[in-house]
């Protein structure tokens, strides 16, 4: 797939390093968002703080020498709710528990879903202007938007999913038009009901990506891959971003059985652990992946978005990724 990247005018090293999407927000931004929610801060105050935080994360990504950047999502709360708030047809519910002490506001589809105007494009542009490294566009996928929303309007899950795909296609087109060459579609829920993958999830992804000239990454996290593999390879994307460090499933064994035909962004550090993996551990994980994948197929990144870690943990985890990747690159050169 490096060929497709070259055609798009992107030159990336072997084993490009990147991040999944979110970074931790600085405490003053969290506090400001809290005040805003409580009605004690004017909405106008937020963008400046979010831009400042984005600049800091761009600088940190430069410092750790990541190859492909993200904007860090300083302006997003929950990944589904953020898009739902900006689409037609949604209302936002009260707080729903996710696990332990974690809560989120779940969107409710109450009418026909529609795309009004670009949602993430200005943030993508803002970030790309700060760096020469390519910045990924990141959107939440139609299946996940459907599965993570209440549905009071459409009569089936399929209908809701395809309506969302149509709306997201507009966003993806707008990102590509602005210049985004790498676009990631986050689908952590894609394996929720495996039977729905051939029924409509693949169609939905086709609607999102059709006719858009970009290198598409599909990010999938916690889930049971064995139920949708190798069927998921039918999804019309170039790269799958899968978690490996937090998964008990031995995907490597799975890939031995059914060769992995796309590029793979290999999640090598656990975003839900405070413990920073040492370079050797990460290096071993990468070498493990190279047992079943060609180096040209492989990207290296964390398991998932890093927003639940501290700034220091995040930077250390990214450093571990970059230094382990560099070591593996050296070895590949030698051999």
């Amino acid at each position, binding site marked *: 797939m490096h060929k497709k990247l070259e055609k798009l005018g992107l030159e990336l090293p072997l084993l490009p390093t990147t991040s999944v999407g979110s970074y931790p927000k600085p405490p003053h931004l969290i506090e400001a968002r809290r005040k805003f929610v409580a009605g004690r801060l004017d909405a106008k105050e937020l963008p400046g703080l979010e831009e400042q935080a984005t600049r800091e994360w761009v600088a940190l990504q430069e410092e750790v020498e990541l190859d492909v950047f993200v904007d860090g999502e300083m302006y997003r709360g929950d990944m589904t709710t953020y898009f739902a708030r900006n689409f037609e047809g949604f209302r936002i519910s*009260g*707080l*729903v528990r996710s*696990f332990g002490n974690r809560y989120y506001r779940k969107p409710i589809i109450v009418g026909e879903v529609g795309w009004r105007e670009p949602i993430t494009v200005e943030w993508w542009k803002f970030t790309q202007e700060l760096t020469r490294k390519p910045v990924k566009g990141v959107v939440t996928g139609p299946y996940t938007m459907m599965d993570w929303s209440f549905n009071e309007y459409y009569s089936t899950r399929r209908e809701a999913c395809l309506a969302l795909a149509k709306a997201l296609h507009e966003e993806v087109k707008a990102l590509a038009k602005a210049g985004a060459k790498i676009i990631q579609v986050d689908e952590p829920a894609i394996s929720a009901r495996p039977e729905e993958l051939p029924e409509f999830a693949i169609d939905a992804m086709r609607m999102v990506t059709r006719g858009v000239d970009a290198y598409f990454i599909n990010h999938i996290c916690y889930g049971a891959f064995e139920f949708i593999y190798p069927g998921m390879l039918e999804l019309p994307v170039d790269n799958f971003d899968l978690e490996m460090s*937090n998964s008990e499933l031995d995907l490597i064994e799975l890939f031995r059985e059914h060769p992995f035909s796309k590029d793979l962004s290999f999640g090598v550090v656990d975003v839900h652990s405070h413990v920073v993996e040492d370079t050797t551990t990460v290096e071993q994980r990468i070498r493990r992946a190279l047992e079943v994948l060609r180096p040209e197929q492989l990207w290296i990144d964390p398991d998932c978005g890093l927003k639940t870690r501290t700034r220091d943990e995040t930077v250390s985890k990214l450093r571990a990724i970059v230094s382990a990747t560099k070591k593996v690159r050296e070895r590949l050169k030698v051999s």
Partner: protein
Amino acid sequence: MMEILTASAGSYPRIGSRPEQQRHRQAYAQWERGELSDKGFERIQQEVTREVIDEQVHAGLDVVTDGQVRWYDSISHFARKLEGCEINGLLRFFDTNTYFRQPVVIGKIKRSEPILEEEFIFAKGVSPKPVKPVATGPYTLAKLSINRRGGDLASLVNEFAGVIAQETSALSKAGADLIQIDEPAILKSPKDFQMLEHAIEKIVAEKSGARLLVHTYFGDATPLYNKLVKLPVEVLGFDFTYSPKLPGTIGRLGCEKDLELGLIDGRNTRLENEREVLDVLKKILPNIGSKRVYLTPSCGLGEYLPWEIAFKKLQNVVAIAKKARELI
């Protein structure tokens, strides 16, 4: 004469959306940071349990639960108190939007301390209505665990069954009249039904006076209905949201056990209208020999609905049950 009652199917939201309804969440965070003592957090959990029970009573339910306010999730709440188990990372809970911490079995499973007893005794003490304790079933606990110690699934189920049997026995002695065992996992692996059957027999043998309720959800129970009605328990519970054919099947094959009918979708904010639910009840009620039928949401509401909607759903259960009584 059939009696139609209303009940909670399990968990209930701990917090609402307004700033003053955040107490449990804030206390939890403080406790995690070490700023609140175990005792202080326990006091908050007791207060919230009391409120959650009040909510259910206020909505008009005949049978309530403690809302599972203390549960991290329905799997690790048990596993973390067992010998032979460690707790691993997060995994999606069936096809829901919630996650649970997956147990890793590293040795022989043994119950080293009571799990639900204290929670039940507290709830019973503060509730004006009967409290139904809910335990996750041995098959589901075993199926959702990672087995690192070797041996087959059947022996793991059997060991978890020993634990849940001790739990049920203790709950029964503490005064529980009806005890619910949740077995959602069996719907995804019907071929393992015999394991579930043996496990339930083991629990029944030690349950003393309480009536036992086996509840399945997050899947279509229609293919297993024939087998479920033969389990040696007094009550069966069903989630109808996956099962367009289940009402017809129950109507056709009948049922002599009491039933818990999860006809109100516990995972969607849309409020059912009375008629759509009553139409389904018309297919079931005239054809069964059950003495008691409990109308419930399809599953616990604590992880799936915001507080505001959860209460409306329970009110809806109560309103529909009232209409259903006119049917019979």
